[in-house]
């Protein structure tokens, strides 16, 4: 293996495990690019089955990273999801932590 001395394993431990899951990362990225979206949109955009999406949205909601609420859109009841400030912050932190790790691995 090439020199990876600059990589501190503690940085990897610092990665948020909620965000680190590829499924939840996809969901957060989708929600980061819209103001709010319903279940169907996220399912299509993130290419996730409804069951998988449901489970992972629950985890994100428990972590306070997304807000799930019932809303009427054009008189139709919908489950609307939006990313919270904590979610945005978590994604930014994850991105800024992961960047140097990947850079170190490439060296």
């Amino acid at each position, binding site marked *: 293996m090439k020199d990876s001395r600059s990589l501190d394993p503690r940085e990897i431990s610092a990665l948020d495990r909620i965000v680190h899951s590829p499924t939840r990362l996809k969901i957060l*990225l*989708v929600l*980061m*690019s*819209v*103001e*709010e*979206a*319903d*279940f*169907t*949109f*996220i*399912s*299509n*955009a993130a290419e996730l089955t*409804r069951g998988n*999406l*449901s489970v992972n*949205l*629950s985890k994100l*909601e428990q972590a306070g990273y997304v807000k*799930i609420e019932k809303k009427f*859109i*054009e008189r139709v*009841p*919908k*489950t*609307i*999801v939006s990313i919270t400030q904590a979610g*945005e912050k978590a*994604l*930014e932190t994850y*991105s*800024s932590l992961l*960047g140097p790790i990947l850079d170190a691995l490439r060296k």
Partner: protein
Amino acid sequence: MNDQLSEQTKKLKKRYARTFHNDGLLDFFIGWALVSAGIYLLTSSIVFSFAGWMPILLIAPLKQHFVIPRFGYAKFLKPASIPRPILIGAGIIVSIGALLITFLGENQGSRAPLIVGLLGLALLFALDQGWNRTTVYAIFIPIFFIVGLGFRVLTPTIIILVGAVLMGLGVYLFVRFLKKYPAERGEGEGSS
């Protein structure tokens, strides 16, 4: 937000917005408006002066009925400013149109296929590059009329033909959209 993340979310937003509007409704109704305009010029029937724009009012209900249940609902963040490539592209198209009028303007009639062909190519190029079709049409339609009038070749038949092509494109995109996003049976509750 760090730059890379910001750039990625911008790209995603653009992609989702494009897919959301890739249902062919806009294309169909712009085509319909052109066909109606052409028929109106041919027949002077007042019905077609209204028939052209009235169905545009159907876009929102149709979107509500066909698109949102399939692709889902999303509220997009405030629209981004027009990207530089679109502005440059629009400038090139306008320049080509102006040059055509200047140098070929005296030869009327026989140049019609050339004009429509060039504009069609420009339109296809723009769509291929993933430009927002609303922007493309906003550029394309005025140029179509300006160049056509400049050449005095904008006959009702050409308008109807171009409109029919756009309607055909709209139907194609609409069918493709319905196939790609089949109707959902439920709304997917239980997410909370």
